[in-house]
């Protein structure tokens, strides 16, 4: 492993200030990503932050790096494309629970089973923030929202279990209210080779009056304090992912070394695509034409 030269966090200060509501959990996530990039010594020009649409998906606009602010639910395929075009950059995908687990969950599953070497930080606020507060796939049963005034009747997704059984090789949970731990977790996720998902509680102070900072504060605990080993056993990790009502684990729940998609992809053996020449092998081309005769 090459030695890492840490960068000052200010390196990543974005061009404009975030426009989130005061107190929004996303501030802590932004700060954590900036700290993680700084800690890992990733230069702004080598960092690519890709998002979908949502309050949380505005994040790329607030960090000094390259960014794509794509379509609602499509951050994962867009990031896959950007990443495969230029594998020399570090890709961090960010977005909301609606974006990632609602409309985008199909892409997510397929990216995870590819074990694509990217990091995905979901700002999970159990609500649709930007569209002013409808139910989300992580809203709890009974949650009253603009679209479920009588209470949500759908079971919430367990994104961590989903990730573990789909093939993600680094599965963690963060909380914006435990910002230092979150920064460390994201830093570790970025250094992990393979797909890393960091589901992050990032309270929406405007529309979610249930899953608030105090609600989480009462429940969260740090897995590392318990001596839990995320590399040991899938089923134990799965069990941890189901802890919810009374106590909720933070940190790395599951970690596993596996070949990545990039390892298997022949076209990348010669390095990043964008750095390869556009010249073609004319003799070979001629042979392809000859085959048609």
């Amino acid at each position, binding site marked *: 492993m090459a030695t890492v030269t840490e960068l000052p966090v200010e390196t990543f200060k974005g*061009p*404009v200030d975030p*426009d989130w509501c005061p107190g929004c959990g996303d501030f802590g996530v932004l700060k954590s990503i900036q700290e993680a990039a700084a800690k890992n010594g990733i*230069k*702004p*020009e*080598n960092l*690519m932050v*890709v998002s979908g*649409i949502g309050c949380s998906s*505005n994040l*790329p*606009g607030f960090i*000094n*790096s*390259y*960014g*794509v*602010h*794509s*379509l609602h639910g*499509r951050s*994962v*395929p*867009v*990031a*896959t*494309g*950007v*990443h*495969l*075009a*230029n594998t*020399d*950059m570090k890709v961090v995908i960010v977005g909301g629970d609606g974006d990632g687990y609602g409309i985008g969950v*199909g*892409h997510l*599953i*397929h990216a995870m089973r590819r074990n694509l070497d990217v990091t995905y930080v979901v700002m999970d606020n159990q609500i649709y923030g930007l569209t002013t507060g409808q139910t989300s796939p992580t809203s709890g049963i009974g949650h009253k929202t603009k679209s479920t005034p009588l209470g949500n009747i759908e079971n919430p997704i367990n994104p961590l279990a989903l990730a573990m059984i789909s093939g993600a090789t680094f599965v963690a949970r963060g909380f914006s209210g435990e910002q230092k731990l979150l920064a460390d977790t994201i830093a570790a996720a970025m250094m992990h080779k393979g797909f890393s998902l960091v589901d992050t509680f990032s309270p929406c102070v405007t529309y979610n009056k249930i899953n608030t900072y105090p609600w989480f504060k009462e429940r969260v605990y740090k897995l590392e304090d318990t001596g839990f080993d995320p590399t040991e056993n899938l089923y134990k990790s799965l069990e941890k992912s189901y802890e919810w009502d009374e106590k909720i684990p933070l940190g790395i729940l599951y970690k596993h070394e596996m070949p990545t998609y990039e390892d298997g*992809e*022949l*076209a*990348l053996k*010669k390095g990043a*695509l*964008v750095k*390869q020449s*556009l010249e*073609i*092998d*004319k003799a*070979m*081309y*001629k042979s*392809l*034409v*000859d085959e*048609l*005769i």
Partner: protein
Amino acid sequence: MQEVTIGIAGAAGDGLDKSGDTLARSCGRFGLHVYAYNSYQSIIRGGHIWLRVRISDRKVTCHGDKLGVLVALNQDSIERHAREVDEGGFILFNSDRIKCEESLIKKGVTLLPISMKEVTEEVAKKYGPVKPIMQNTVAMGAVMWLMGLGTEQTEEVLTDTFSAKGKEVIDMNVALLEAGYEYAKKIVSKPIFVAGKWESDKKRRPFITGNEAIAMAAYAAGCKFYAAYPMTPASTILHWMATNAKKTGILVKQCEDEISVANMAIGAGIGGVRSMCATAGGGFALMTEAVGMAGIMEVPVIFVEVQRGGPSTGLPTKTEQADLFQVFGASQGEFPRLIVAPRDIADAYASTVESFNLADKYQLPVLMMSDLLLSEHPETVDAEALSCDVKVERPEYIKEWDAEKNGKFKRYKFTESGISPRALPGTPGACHVTASDDHDERGILISDMFTSPPVRRKIMEKRMTKVANMLKELPAPKLEGPANADVTLLCWGSTWGVVREAAELLNEKGIKTNFLCIKYIAPFHTKEVTEILSKSKKKISVEVNFTSVMAQFVKMQTGVSMDGHITKYDGEPLEPKMIVEEVEAQLASKTKDLSVSEAEAMEMAYHYLRTHALEKLRPSTLKVHSKNGSGEPVWEIELAERITNKSAGTIKIGSNTGSVIEFKQESPVNA
């Protein structure tokens, strides 16, 4: 000039595409021109496949409407196509399994029943049992005799085809070929043609489909990323890409769906590589949201939309040109993009290369429209049309940006040309966000905190400015054929091929005809097309769809209405004579008769029998009755048993609606 069309009919899985390929490549190597069209179904085994291979000593641009030889691989194929063989033609079939009633053929047609068992007896003795699929090679041998060509080229092709399978297999196939050839020679003393009469230029031409040409052009143009989700008739681009990935170095990605395909392709475009994807109409519907994203982000990326029979899943393996407005209207809002529809395989190749260059230069998505006919039919083309010495024009990118000196990098700088400087991700000093929300010069959103109507106005104008500039470098469409014609045919895409031939026929008949093929859909050459069409006399659009979408579109751009429309929307491509007849009818001011023709009534009866598990019957005679209680005249069709020819009942079909009004077998049953 000499030409012949060989039709091969059978079921999916009968291997007739292989045989067609062998035939076509043999002729191609002989220096002849070949155009083939395969009419098939969305089914893996069974069903009905109808392959026509047109062979000519000058370039032909459609499969025509003649049928010199029918090779029927099953009984149903006889029922369906025996009637179509022209006078002087031949019908080949395995007489061990298949029969052909004399009542089914035109006079002057020769039946050539081949007892496969007998003919292959010797070969089987030497090489072991002959599988049914190998019998096709026997038929090919017979065809080569009928065409007046030798077996030399075909042997060469078989040798290449089976080279991996070893000498034994090659020899066996060659032996089967020769057995067929000799057998035909024995039975048919005078073949259709004499070899020497074929005016071959001896140039060996690649036999290639539109999709293969698009794929090869993409490679030649420097494409580095290809994403796809399987969908007929676009899948063969994926297959070419995948098969050749190791050689080309292109990253070929089959995604989980078309939404992913489009967004990944755009992502790769943002990342800085030349990127392409392809799909059919239904897949493209799923991509449209992303198309608009590429527009506002100003990302170069190529989308290929291969049209097939719609609406919806429709007729997945049939051809149609009905997606124009889907592509034109793709995605909400307004943004610059190039929409181009090549007209033949060589043009598909050139257009693909051009698309990559224009996408890069103007930083926009290109939507290339093809159709099943163009994409899937194979044709011999000059090797030069597939040259790898294409111009690959990439603009200069910013290599490094000094923000201290030059101010912050403006990815979307408002310029007079509308084209802004581009720095690829990874470039030091030029960090920026590529956003689907609207933004200012630096890429900062103007949709949230920083709303600003004048900035919005200016970025809209910046983007849209590119359209007019791009139009200037696109060649305007030209009228083909005589200048002062009586009739001008309007067409687009693959229909060009059949229109070209129809115009020729019309001119031969003394109806002075020229034609205009629209290639660039957006931006559009309004001035030039208006000029051409306002001078034209009788203007008739020719399209493979119901609502004449290109005619509508041209009217929108120019205000010029067509005087008539020729349309076809039954899944099969147009043929030259249909166009000729329709033009004549329209010149004579005949209104189009939409009632069910005799031949159609026949086919509809066949359909009824097939779908009611009554395949042992066959429609025999038919006549029209007026009204008859159902409110419309009806076709009354007598049914007979296929084997005994015994009368078996009647079917009544409404001659306007085509509804099956009554069906009687032994005991009367209403249908």
